[in-house]
């Protein structure tokens, strides 16, 4: 006997939803049924939001952050210091830094890091445009805020070697203890890094 399933349209919707990050087969089915059974306009609103976001959001031509025009809000803001440039891996890394309000310079997102094991070479990243910016904007300091792992460190090393010839101070954000945390709650690796990166008083 043939087993009854959802109509093709619903099955197709479930298959499409499953391509979204974090959505498994069960969630995909629940979302699909909600879309089909909703009595208001919410599903249509979501569809419009997806379409219009796809149309209006693009990477900032200068730094790679999310933008609605050629330049993102940060790059277009004239009150921000041109002398400071902060290099990050992903555009999403900019938001946590912004939340600190401790940095009033500009950013440059590389769109990843050099990783031979994942077949990511320097040409795949926004490195040429970083060099161009350094030449054009002549910042006085470049701060590297990449991940504290092997790839993040190697990418930082690569960029430092590349930018050494420019008259600019190159710095890396510190690794260390979480604010408000006692020594006893820190793991040994963090603590040994904090020791290695101690600062003069």
């Amino acid at each position, binding site marked *: 006997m043939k087993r009854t399933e959802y109509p093709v349209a619903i099955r197709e919707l479930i298959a499409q939803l499953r391509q979204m990050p974090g959505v498994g087969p069960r969630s995909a089915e629940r979302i699909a049924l909600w879309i089909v059974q909703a009595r208001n306009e919410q599903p249509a609103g979501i569809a419009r939001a997806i379409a219009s976001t796809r149309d209006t959001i693009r990477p900032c031509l200068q730094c790679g952050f999310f933008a609605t025009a050629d330049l993102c809000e940060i790059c277009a803001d004239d009150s921000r210091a041109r002398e400071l440039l902060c290099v990050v891996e992903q555009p999403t890394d900019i938001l946590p830094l912004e939340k600190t309000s401790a940095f009033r310079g500009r950013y440059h997102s590389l769109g990843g890091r*050099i*990783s*031979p*094991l994942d077949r990511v*070479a*320097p040409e795949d990243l926004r490195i040429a445009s970083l060099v161009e910016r350094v030449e054009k904007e002549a910042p006085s300091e470049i701060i590297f805020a990449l991940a504290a*792992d*092997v*790839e993040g*460190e*190697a*990418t930082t*090393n*690569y960029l430092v*070697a*590349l930018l050494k010839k420019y008259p600019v101070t190159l710095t890396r954000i510190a690794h260390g203890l979480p604010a408000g945390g006692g020594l006893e709650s820190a*793991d*040994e*690796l963090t603590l*040994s890094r904090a020791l290695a990166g101690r600062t003069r008083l």
Partner: protein
Amino acid sequence: MLRELQLRDFRCFASIAAEFSPGFNFIVGANGQGKTTLLEAACVLLRLQSQRSSSLAPAVRVGQRSFVVSGHVGEHRLQFYYRALRRKVAFDGVEQRDQAEYLRLVRVVSFASHDLELIRGPAEMRRRYLDFIGTQAEARYRPVLRAYERALRSRNALLKSPHPRPRELAAYTEPLVRAGTSLREMRAALVRRLAPFAEASHRAISGGHENLSLEYAPGSEEDFAAQLARTRTEEERLRLTIVGPHRDDLRLQVEAMPAAQFASEGQQRTTALALKLAQAQVFAEDTATPPLLLVDDIFGELDAARRNALLAHLPNESQKLVTATALDWRAGDWGGPVLELTDGEIRRRDK
């Protein structure tokens, strides 16, 4: 102490549970009943790695996609869930993001007949022995080892590309040197601690007749960076990083002769035991809780004198899980429960 162990979809077992006592626990069964698997599950639960293989994927029962091992250590409940690309560790029902706390609980020493490979096998076996101890003895060891391996693989991938580019290579050389130097220091310190214990154990098990010596033979020089710079042309020819801790060895000599080539089979077995006993002693020295000893079917290969000497040297306070096909050799005062393993069922006899 490991009070209780449960397996689900782990190797040959769909589901099985066992209870253990302090001191000796004997697991008895015919070949192929899963005695070694029980010991492996204990190791996987407590150390999140197998003493048998470097990957956990083969431990998933055929036809299944995941396994669970769980159990009680003292009052704490531990659980480890594994499936390809997903591992979940829970301590008292709370999922752990940082495994350091969990791994601090119990250390493990495994004795098995393939320990002979430590003496006869390639240097990789001895590096794995050191790493297995290092990751248990020091929280910093595992992240440094992982960073070294990652930097090494990345660097080798660059060297293998059709036109290796010096600047990318240099970017990866720096983390390689840093992790490599730390790893070398940690392994050297580890061997310094193991050597006196191993040498004393070997002398005792051999009845005071033989002398073992242990020496760390690093695969890189003190100035690792300078050595890498010197070997660049050779690296380009072989398309590999040719010096570094991935070439380390542990030099073993019995009566001042290399143990792999010159020691007899009996001497080699003694040396393997001495290395494992030294591991147990280093752990015992480090922590208040003595290590759990997994002894997998090695009594059959030892003569009565060495068997007794070994038992006399196992740390008294340690809990021991011992497997054997039969127990007729068991004499005297090594009491403890016997767990009979037949057709996927455990029958426990206390005495």
